[in-house]
């Protein structure tokens, strides 16, 4: 059976395909996949899913390897091998507010999709806050008055800027990472090692 690699759909997908192509793997069938959610090449079976689901597929052994943002791994804590960072998907977490916003004299309200990351961040700072869970477009929350600030991923800052928000604080630099199922890594070592080594070389790890 071919090794199964789960890929995060969207932003990371294109960056991964470029990266994989740079390692001299033939990615043409993936680039022309249309809306297919699984594609089989000569060497691998690729499945495409949302970030948290990539982690779930790998954790449950449906996929042997996965490419996923570190934000997902920190937020959801899947039981997988979290092998090493890949040279794409680089971004960070940030606290952002409306420009010239004055914090109210009460407990802060923070809107985010990353409730565990936000909670841990403010806990480390020794600050109690109320977290409001949103599924997306969190930039709306301060504008509409639902929250004082947001915690979200920031790559270029363009979305924040276009919505009149400014970064109050940056924390947690993240990138895409290679993850592996805990038993697949061992019992399929001969099949998985060549691709892991190729990723490692492509990632130009210094350690």
């Amino acid at each position, binding site marked *: 059976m071919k090794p199964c690699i789960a890929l995060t759909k969207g932003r990371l997908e294109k960056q991964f395909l470029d990266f994989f192509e740079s390692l001299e793997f033939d990615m043409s069938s993936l680039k022309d996949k249309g809306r297919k959610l699984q594609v089989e090449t000569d060497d691998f079976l690729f499945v495409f899913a949302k970030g948290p689901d990539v982690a779930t597929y790998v954790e449950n052994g449906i996929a042997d390897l996965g490419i996923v943002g570190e934000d997902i791994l920190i937020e959801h804590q899947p039981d997988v*091998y*979290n092998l090493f960072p890949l040279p794409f998907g680089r971004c960070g977490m940030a606290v952002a507010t409306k420009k010239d916003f004055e914090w109210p004299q009460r407990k802060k309200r923070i809107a985010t999709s990353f409730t565990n990351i936000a909670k841990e961040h403010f806990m480390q700072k020794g600050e109690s806050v109320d977290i409001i869970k949103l599924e997306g477009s969190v930039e709306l929350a301060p504008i509409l008055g639902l929250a004082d600030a947001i915690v979200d991923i920031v790559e270029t800052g363009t979305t924040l800027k276009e919505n009149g928000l400014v970064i109050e604080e940056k924390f947690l630099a993240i990138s895409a990472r290679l993850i592996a199922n*805990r038993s697949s890594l061992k019992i399929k070592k001969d099949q998985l090692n060549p691709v892991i080594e190729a990723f490692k070389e492509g990632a130009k790890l210094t350690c």
Partner: protein
Amino acid sequence: MFLPAGSQDETGTLLVNRAKAYETFRYVTEKRNFKQISTPAIEYASTFTNRIAGMNLNEMMKWFNKEGEIEVLRPDWTTAIARAVAKQPIHQQKWSYQGSVFRIDKDGTESRQAGIEIVHANSVLGERECMLTAIDYLKSLHIDKYVIELGHTEIFDILIQSLKLDTTQEDLLRTAMHDKRRDVVYQLVNNTGNSEIANHLTELTEAYGNKDIITKYQDLWSDNDELLQILENLNNMIELIEATTDLEVIVDLGRVKNLPYYDGMMFRGFLKKDGSTCFSGGRYDRLYKYYQQDTTAVGLAFDVDVLASHMTDHKEKKRACIIASEKTHQVAEAFRNELTDYIVEVSYDEQVTSTFDLCYKVMEQDNEYKVVKL
């Protein structure tokens, strides 16, 4: 009515397989001179959260009793048995158990285990008996496509000795090793100014595979007697397994303990079909020190739910039906004993016959009752 997440009603093959797994386990362990032990489902949380057992209270099903103490549903057998066995006569060395453990984790609340504990025995003998019992038991269940993995907790502990890490740093490093997160392993150790050990531990995250790994590390660690002794112990165990079976054995020299009480060889079985872990265990002499016993202890637990879902040799018995009436029911009951290889049902309704493999009917002829095949 709905059930809470993790709870389920069960019928059918899985349930039959699980009963067979328990029954076979009892048979195999009894023949190998294990004595059964059971502990209560409800215990004080402190039995499992003390500094040696070190389990996480957040993952336990818990409540306050009327004295205000926290009680839990048994989250782990080994710790509970150590508490119980510490009071037992020392001449009894081999214990077996079976039953549920309860943890709040992603796979549900209740899971079923069967396991063995060998206490006060010669260390090597105990480890070998654990492994051979596992092989014997899985063979009895006709499960033969699995890989045995060996590891040793002391490798990591010896290699980090000179780093003088505080508890927080050590926990972070152990977690990074557990996740084979090589960049973080390197960074954490390199930050202490030991780039050589940083490189060494980073490489160790990839020291898994067949026994060639042992040969490689025998060369690398040729000047460290403690590490060489560990490698020899692992090698001896591999030789024993290879001499008695044709199973694939792998090692992971970078494996670290996932519970604080482990302190020696660790073993695990992966099913080849889907990679699920069918047994795991290891040495935990430390656990008995908490109960003031300086002794040896080693054990392993089988995941009965995993075994039950992989048992394929279960053949449903054929089903027979005896059609009777209120008047002839006792004749049907007597005839039931002749159908020893069948599941037998007595029915008053002739319409049911199409659902059985074999049907009989109690007929009255000349004032006598006869059972005839339909």
